[in-house]
């Protein structure tokens, strides 16, 4: 039971839209009353976005390869090189998927894959050029770890790698691979993956080049609640520095079929509380997305009253979370219906959160 009166001052600060300290963030996530957190987060959301609108994007997820040599213990999606189930999509296959998206009014692809040991930078550049020459579609692509991986293969700097990908047609970089920006936790779940500092540095570099990115957090594994706040703090610090993040997206780890399947899976209680604290703590990131992919449409609806102002994307296909046993789907109709049922107006957006007229 939460009968904690010592938080009153922190609640007042949050209600007055003041910046919360790390200690205050930890106190809220550990001891805050669920309903007070929800109410304060919703107020903050309405303060940032006073119009009664919830946005979403018609976007297709495309995973160009599942081959990966980073062996993250939380991942059920990747296959080792040479594995029977490994694949690399041909450009034409990717083109077909984009055509399907465009037929459905889509504006963007989320293009991500594993860390393939043999694909060279030219493969990615050629892919981007193949896409941009044929289709009017924004490429929200790769991730800090993929970019670091490609840079490593080529012996290039992160900056040069991003510049070349951008010249070939990359629009923005998603925040994937953020996982938990606490190195001791990363060492346990993804020891070969981009470090916390390097993840932040890829995003810093992209922002310096004028490219926008998003930030993510995957929680509900080995981290403490305080470490979630530490993650939020790292994102907030970089955002103070660059202002380059458009949105923050958080989701719960799905343990099924992964080497970490013994981890006690979180359902929604912690998800909503962490969402509310994220909204209050990340005072400099404009947009917070619902994770209907892990939480399902019913909880996504509830999240719209707990700090969330965006329903994310239509996805069309999802391969990573579904490999871990969680399969939800939401069409644009379903997303709009949910948004309207909560009393908001649905609006389609682009990657920059600019509303699109349909």
């Amino acid at each position: 039971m939460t009968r904690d009166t010592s938080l009153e001052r922190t609640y007042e600060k949050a209600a007055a839209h003041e910046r919360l300290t790390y200690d205050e963030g930890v106190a809220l996530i550990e001891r805050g009353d669920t309903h007070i957190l929800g109410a304060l987060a919703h107020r903050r959301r309405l303060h940032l976005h006073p119009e009664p609108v919830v946005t979403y994007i018609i976007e297709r997820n495309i995973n160009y390869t599942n081959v990966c040599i980073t062996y993250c213990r939380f991942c059920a999606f990747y296959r080792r090189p040479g594995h029977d189930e490994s694949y690399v999509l041909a450009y034409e296959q990717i083109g077909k998927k984009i055509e399907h998206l465009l037929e459905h009014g889509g504006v963007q692809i989320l293009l991500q894959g594993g860390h393939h040991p043999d694909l060279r930078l030219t493969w990615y550049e050629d892919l981007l050029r193949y896409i941009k020459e044929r289709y009017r579609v924004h490429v929200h692509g790769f991730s800090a770890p993929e970019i670091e991986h490609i840079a490593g293969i080529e012996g290039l700097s992160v900056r040069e790698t991003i510049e070349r990908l951008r010249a070939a047609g990359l629009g923005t970089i998603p925040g994937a691979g953020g996982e938990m920006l606490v190195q001791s936790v990363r060492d346990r779940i993804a020891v070969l993956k981009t470090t916390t500092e390097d993840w932040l540095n890829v995003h810093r570099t992209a922002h310096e080049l004028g490219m926008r990115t998003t930030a993510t957090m995957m929680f509900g594994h080995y981290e403490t609640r305080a470490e979630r706040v530490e993650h939020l703090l790292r994102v907030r610090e970089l955002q103070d520095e660059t202002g380059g993040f458009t949105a923050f997206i958080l989701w719960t780890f799905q343990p099924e079929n992964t080497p970490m399947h013994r981890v006690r899976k979180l359902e929604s209680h912690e998800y909503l509380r962490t969402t509310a604290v994220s909204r209050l703590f990340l005072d400099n990131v404009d947009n917070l997305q619902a994770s209907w992919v892990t939480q399902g449409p019913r909880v996504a609806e509830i999240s719209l009253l707990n700090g969330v102002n965006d329903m994310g994307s239509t996805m069309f296909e999802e391969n990573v979370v579904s490999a871990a046993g969680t399969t939800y789907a939401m069409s644009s109709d379903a997303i709009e219906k949910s948004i309207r049922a909560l009393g908001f107006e649905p609006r389609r957006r682009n990657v920059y959160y600019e509303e699109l007229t349909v």
Partner: protein
Amino acid sequence: MIPSVFRGSPIRDLLDKSVAGERLTLEDGVRLFETDDLHALGWVANHVREARHGDTTYYLKNRHINYSNVCKYDCMFCSFYRSSIDQEGAWEWSVEQVLLHVAPYKDSGLREFHIVGGVHPHLPFSYYTDMLRALKEAHPGVALKAFTAIEIAYFAELTGKSLREVLTELKHAGLQMLPGGGAEVFADRVRYKVCRDKADADRWFEVHETAHALGIPTNATLLYGHIETTEERVDHILRLRDLQDRTSGLKSYIPLAYHPDGNRLQKLGAPTGVDALRNIAVGRLLLDNVAHIKAYWIMLGIKTAQLALSWGANDIDGTVTWERIYHMAGSQTPEGMTEERLREVIEEAGRLPVERDAFYNVVQPLGAPA
């Protein structure tokens, strides 16, 4: 007492009334269902829940027995029923088949069989009493919670006996509790539109009141999220409150979300997760005389059910193992949960899992001091 963030709430007066333990009116109930201040509603429902139960959250080891889905009736919200055994997807189990299905549960610590079927056109009344007797004999430690008021009312029609006689015979055969189904929405307008074949509200109450008089406790449900109005929801809950004032026989209240797949109300779509929490909260606040509010996970989904534990619910139902009624209407939940997983889900919500039996008696863990 009221946190500062909720002191300016448009339902502040109802927060005060609820915290003071004052009874809410129909008008109050309508305002609670319609308020935009969801978090204030959730907070006060949680407050009332914690004042009554602390962190205790009940679950039980149970097994559903849907003995047949053949049904004379034709309710618009139902994806479970088939009008005859010849139709695709129809089944009816003999008593022997029922026993076979539950044989693996012998001495497994199971506490309840939840037995519900259609309103079967041909089975004789002796089928039901035989089934109860056979189950009781094979599983003496398992409580028999069987037959909705609709089935009971039909048994009276079938046999030409009074409700009291029917319930007495069932009790002698082993019946210990009635589930809360068939209540749907009590308002005549709604019943006429979506389930006109079914026993009407008066008959539903007659069954429950008779059961209570015979010492058979019951549950009560509301099927929300289809064509009912807010007033009809509140009216429904207050009729249950009146019954409970008279008999004290209701063990729990269970708001059920309408599920749209495979039935004729499909175009309505599913009610939102927010509506689910709202129904739990308003139920908790209006039903000041019913001890337990159940977040029926098989229908809400485990995630929404878990959230409901902070919105007034103090019970999450059971391990279930096999469920057809909601799954034939598109429920995406698994058909069963292990006890360990149910406890984890309750603990994530910051609550204390406590195993109960069908009657809400605490089951002492093995090895606990007597």
